[in-house]
């Protein structure tokens, strides 16, 4: 068999000049080979389409059965565990799809009922397993929901992901910590961001702005110990929050620093908070 294959290969590559019969045989072999490959590809595509179709049907069936109950539950004092009583673990992903969009659109009691689904039902353990997994997709999904649901129990796990070599994991986990307002990790986010090659200053600032305004006091207390880059970021956060209490420290940096970027941030801050003391030094 090996001999024939080697011989055919030699014929095809032109090492041996084929006779008429041999040429026909080679052509037939190539055609059969291509037909088998095409057939396998068609079968693979059909299987994938079948799986997608079954997945879509399962999702549609689940949503048509579950959505009305879910909408009744939103904003009501109903125990979320009752809502999930007959939902299978394999259907949690569909449920999370529906909840995901609404987290950013609803407020008040509606938002509280969404948070309860994440924090007080078996979804919590489901997402916790995701957060501890090595799959980027699962980690960022869990981080999103824990951040949105203000879950205080997962801060340490989220922190562990800050030094991930995957930028998406860093962004989602840092944002989740900020949404939870875990002030004690604000410096860690600043520090860990330095190890992320693909993260821009704008993204970092957008993450830090997810913290409540009390992050300013926390950043101010650590300002002296930070390098110029982190100082610049902190000053931008002060500026966005209109945090006047940092004026003296920013003025001190303005008078002593030679870093142009940092000086620009000091000037912007002084202008925004109308720091009159800075005017003579401009």
């Amino acid at each position, binding site marked *: 068999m090996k001999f024939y294959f080697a011989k055919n290969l030699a014929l095809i590559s032109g090492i041996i000049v084929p006779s008429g019969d041999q040429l026909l045989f080679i052509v037939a072999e190539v055609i059969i080979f291509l037909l088998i490959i095409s057939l396998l590809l068609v079968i693979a595509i059909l299987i994938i389409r079948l799986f997608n179709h079954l997945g879509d049907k399962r999702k549609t069936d689940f949503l048509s059965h579950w959505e*009305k109950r879910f*909408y009744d539950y939103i904003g009501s004092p109903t125990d979320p565990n009752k809502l999930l009583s007959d939902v299978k673990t394999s259907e949690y992903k569909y449920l999370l799809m529906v909840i995901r969009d609404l987290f950013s659109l609803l407020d*008040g009691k509606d938002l509280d009922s969404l948070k309860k689904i994440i924090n007080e039902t078996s979804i919590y353990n489901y997402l916790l397993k995701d957060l501890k997994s090595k799959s980027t997709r699962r980690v960022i999904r869990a981080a999103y929901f824990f951040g949105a649901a203000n879950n205080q129990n997962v801060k340490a796990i989220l922190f562990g992901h800050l030094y991930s070599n995957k930028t998406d994991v860093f962004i989602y986990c840092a944002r989740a910590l900020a949404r939870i307002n875990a002030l004690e990790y604000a410096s860690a986010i600043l520090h860990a961001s330095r190890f992320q090659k693909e993260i821009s200053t704008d993204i970092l600032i957008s993450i830090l702005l997810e913290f409540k305004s009390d992050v300013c006091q926390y950043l101010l207390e650590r300002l002296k110990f930070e390098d110029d880059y982190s100082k610049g970021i902190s000053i931008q956060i002060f500026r966005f929050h209109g945090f006047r209490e940092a004026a003296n420290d920013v003025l001190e940096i303005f008078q002593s620093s030679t870093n142009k970027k940092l000086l620009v941030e000091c000037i912007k801050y002084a202008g925004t908070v109308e720091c009159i003391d800075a005017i003579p030094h401009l």
Partner: protein
Amino acid sequence: MAENKKKIFYAEDSDSLVKLMTYKLQNEGYDIIVFTNGEIVYESVVAEKPDLVILDLMMPIKDGLTILREIKSNPDTSNIPVIMLTTNAEEDTILKALETGASEYITKPFSTAVLLAKIKKILG
């Protein structure tokens, strides 16, 4: 019986919010017609004269503020109350919508109970 139902036009491009609000409004006894973009909202308002229009500010094809202006500049539709719904909470945008004639301005995220209360207040 169905004729007594107040008709609400709801123009919103968020699928999840549309489904939730449609369910809540129907439960309250309103007849709701949904538009997922701004293309034919104004023409439909002129044709059907609903009791209330809820407009998302940012929508594909035609934005909510343009539709609001069209509704309010037509004497046939200018009396129809409009609630603006948006993520943009900037003072200028809110003022612009209210000056153009919006009855209410609600910023996302919002509470469905609050929106329903405002709708009830407007529709009486």
